[in-house]
């Protein structure tokens, strides 16, 4: 078995599992948010900001955000190892993906808690 140092779980089986667990939480969050939009067609600012000040919504959002980081890393890693053959190009792609994901997580925490 070839273990790659750049994969998320350091092992294909972990990556496979993490990819699926995070997929379920992202699917649940997407449906939850879309449902909220559909049920509130004429949303006001008060409704919207109250929604995102609920602890439950914040926890769910943070879960989705962290899931997104892991899910996107595994997906983009798979794509980069499949299609980008030159090592330098692959490394740059993975480094940029990792940096963007880190920015998303920190930015998301800042949006949710307004730090």
């Amino acid at each position, binding site marked *: 078995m070839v273990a790659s140092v750049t994969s998320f779980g350091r092992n294909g089986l972990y990556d496979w599992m993490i990819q699926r667990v995070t997929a379920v939480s992202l*699917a649940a969050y997407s449906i939850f948010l879309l449902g909220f939009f559909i049920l509130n067609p004429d949303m006001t600012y008060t409704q919207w900001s109250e929604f995102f000040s609920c602890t439950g919504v914040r926890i769910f959002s943070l879960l989705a955000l962290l899931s997104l980081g892991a899910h996107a890393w595994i997906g*983009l890693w798979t794509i980069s190892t499949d299609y980008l053959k030159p090592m330098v190009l692959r490394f740059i792609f993975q480094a940029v993906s990792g940096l963007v994901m880190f920015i998303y997580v920190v930015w998301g925490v800042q949006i949710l808690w307004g730090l």
Partner: protein
Amino acid sequence: MNDKRPVNLDLSQFSFPLPALTSIVHRATGIILFVGIAILMYILELSLSSEEGFNSVKECLDGFFVKFIIWGILSGLLYHLVAGTKHLLMDLGIGETLEGGILGAKITIVVSVVLILLAGVWLW
């Protein structure tokens, strides 16, 4: 580097069956969503910043161009969601045969096209 590692095949030499195409679109929508998340997070930040921010988001979303972008991201999300659900079902052993794979790909396309059109109707 070990020479026995798998090689990258020349993809331009293949003819793609339907399940291969839906799989590639699944990957492509994944990349689109990864970029699109930045737009969605910017909108979220602006909409939660203040009442004025919220109203300016509402105003922007009424414009055709912004609405079209949102529809695009939403379409990517819906397709990725449907194709991902099919993936999870196949992991459970459902539709793993050759016929099942082709049928699954067809269902993925039909369901996501319907959802994307419904999303368009809902947005406009």
